[in-house]
């Protein structure tokens, strides 16, 4: 035992060090770099009056620079990706408020499936893709702050089970890259054949996100460039979404409900308005009756939110039904053309809303604290 324990611990140390140094270069989890960059952005002094929050539908759907030009409201795009729900947005907002004065409003936009995801969800989404686990992603992104939120959630909802054991997982690099390591073990040929490609992609993404930092605050990526249009993948995603909508009813998961409640309480307390916009969606869904039934439930849910909370307002009344030419590689993702058109529509509504609210601007509650 004299030698066994040191050898065991040395092996662990070597493996963890190798993973920590090497895996970030070849990981399949490229999206995490975007989430981290967005969090770093929230720590900067941005001084915005309008913050865009949501998932990639908001990140790619709204051109924050254009919106800023058209509305005159200084805007920042803090949209995250699918596994991040309202708890993530609340933490991000709190981070932001540590460095910045309160914004006038938050523009909130999500794809329809986001509400369904739960904290413990490890189901693949979209079907066939890699496992998504909110707990790990939120814990890696926000660390201790997330666990405080999770503990408070557990106290409020005794019957739910928060996977607190994952707290220890985030301490080990091998756990943070467990998906990659599992793939490396179970499908080594696939993993290594893709490794060099991923490395190149990683370097490109890193350059993409760091070199053009000035623009990064406006877009999901650092630059205004978005990947080229990919119609076959739109159709594939649409098929997956369609199959899913047929077999599910619109639901809001327990954790999402609770996080949304916390988010709305916080924004109400701080006097920040929440403007909800329906996300863009491929117009092919309009001809599918079952999909429209499903999406109606989504609309009803958002309408109810606006009715029940005085500081929540709907900017749009229906999805932005995107044409084929406006779609990118997912049914909720817009290309530059779609982005421009959708942003212009949103800007128009926001201007109308501001014009309507003008008489109330002088009242102390409505006045933004931003100088």
């Amino acid at each position, binding site marked *: 035992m004299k030698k*066994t324990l040191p*050898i*065991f611990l040395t092996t*662990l140390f070597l493996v963890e060090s190798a993973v920590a140094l090497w895996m970030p270069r070849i990981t399949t989890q490229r999206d995490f770099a975007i989430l981290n960059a967005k969090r770093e952005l929230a720590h900067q002094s941005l001084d915005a009056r309008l913050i865009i929050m949501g998932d990639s539908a908001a990140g790619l759907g709204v051109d924050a620079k254009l919106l800023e030009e058209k509305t005159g409201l200084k805007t920042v795009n803090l949209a995250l990706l699918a596994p991040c729900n309202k708890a993530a947005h609340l933490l991000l907002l709190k981070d932001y408020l540590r460095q910045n004065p309160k914004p006038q409003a938050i523009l909130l936009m999500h794809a329809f499936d986001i509400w369904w995801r739960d904290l413990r969800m490890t189901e693949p989404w979209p079907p066939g893709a890699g496992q998504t686990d909110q707990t790990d992603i939120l814990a890696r992104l926000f660390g201790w702050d997330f666990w405080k939120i999770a503990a408070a959630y557990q106290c409020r909802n005794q019957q739910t089970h928060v996977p607190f054991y*994952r707290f220890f997982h985030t301490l*080990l690099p091998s756990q943070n890259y467990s998906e990659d390591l*599992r793939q490396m*073990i179970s499908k080594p040929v696939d993993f290594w054949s893709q490794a060099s490609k991923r490395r190149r992609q990683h370097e490109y993404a890193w350059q993409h996100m760091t070199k053009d930092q000035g623009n990064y605050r406006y877009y999901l990526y650092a630059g205004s460039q978005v990947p080229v249009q990919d119609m076959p993948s739109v159709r594939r995603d649409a098929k997956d979404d369609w199959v899913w909508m047929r077999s599910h009813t619109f639901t809001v998961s327990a954790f999402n409900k609770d996080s949304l409640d916390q988010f709305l309480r916080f924004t109400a307390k701080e006097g920040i308005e929440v403007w909800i916009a329906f996300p863009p969606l491929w117009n092919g869904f309009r001809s599918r009756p079952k999909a429209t039934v499903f999406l109606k439930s989504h609309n009803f849910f958002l309408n109810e939110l606006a009715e029940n909370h005085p500081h929540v307002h709907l900017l749009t009344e229906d999805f932005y039904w995107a044409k084929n030419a406006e779609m990118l590689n997912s049914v909720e993702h817009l290309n530059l053309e779609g982005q421009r058109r959708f942003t212009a529509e949103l800007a128009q509504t926001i201007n109308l809303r501001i014009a309507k609210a003008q008489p109330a601007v002088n009242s102390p509650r409505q006045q933004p604290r931003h100088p």
Partner: protein
Amino acid sequence: MLFNSFAFLGFFGVIYALYRFLPHRGQNLWLVCASLFFYGAWDQRLLLLLIASCALNFICVREMAARTQPEEKKIYLRISLFLNLGILFLFKYFHFFFDSLQSLLRVFGWDIPNAPFQILLPIGISFYTFQKISYAVDVYRGLYPPVRSFSDFVLYSTFFPQLIAGPIERPAHLMPQILRPRPIHLEGFQEGCLLFFWGLYEKVFIADNLAPVVARVFDQPGPHTGPAVLLAIYAYAFQILCDFDGYSNMARGLGKLLGFDLMANFNLPYFALGPCDFWRRWHISLSTWLRDYLYIPLGGNREGTWFTLRNLFLTMLLGGLWHGARWNFVLWGFYHGVLLMLAHFYHSTQAAERIEPLISGKARNCLRIFIFFHLTCLGWLFFRASSLSQCWELLNSLFANFHFQIAEIRPMLAALVRYAGLFIVLQCWGYTRHDPFVFRRLPEAFRGLFYAVLFYSLILCGTQNNAAFIYFQF
């Protein structure tokens, strides 16, 4: 609070931190509190039942020991047995027998209403009931004197590492460890950590990862092909072994950390040469309990072949029923009873003497292991099936629908090799060295690497769904 949960890690950390600094009496009282808290964490209502049952047993046995006349002693023993078995029957078997009676009467046209209440099944009731019975019987037989302190008896009955799923300890083995101071050595600590770690690996990496392979056949409607059923049965054989052996090893490891030495429950059971050998290797604490408190009191092998066969059969039938209040457990007990009877018959009629010399030593053992492993697997089919009709359906698939569908069996086979491969290799090596923990024989340098492999298997590929142990339902 499962052993494989972080809640338990926190619980044990607190218990152990204080335990190290307490004197012997304080340690015992601290363990009683910990055990009651541990049990209460499942269901506080059932804690009352556990304490009441401890109190009644303690009084009964003390009264029994105070009597000098054998007849009077017997009365108290009967009261104690009636209490323990009555509680077990009421909480575990009432609904089973009531529902069975209801179904039977319905055949004759009598419709009796459903029971107007639902009785909760207290977790671990079969284990702690048997442990208390062994105490009462051993005191009655004069094998062990009655304990004076109620708290020591409560600790004997509720010691948390083995409270829920054994090993079923005997007073002669556990009680002296409770009554005497327990020195805690570094070796004991290392041994305890190793046993717990190995048990965790068995449970979280092997058993829980094999569960979906098993569920693919047993929890989904058929028809399945014969090879798929066969692989699911193989997977279940290793799932149940690793689940239960994992629990037992974790319990033993925790015991070692606290200075206790709990009995080993498994000894390479799939290398059994026959049914008698199997029951010397599988769930040893239960099989020896059944031998000492059921088979021998029934007459054992003292009254001729037919009585021996009857006793073997009855013991296994009741052993099957002990596992759960379902007909498939009865069928499993029946099956093992028949196997034991056939084995006894085979050896007693000189058939063995004529057949076995035909094959040389090692090959004979290999053949016997192979045959009996498959007979055991067949028994697991009865054990795992949700109903008798499913048993029949799967047997039909196994024998009448045996054709290969590569797409169906490939992932099952891959999972079986991936999760149980190393374990099987270690078991084979262990068999040649007569040591279930054969990996301790590795050179020290390799052992460190081996533990690192186990560690990464556990944290990267171990399931994190906190699945309960299979034997908790019993």
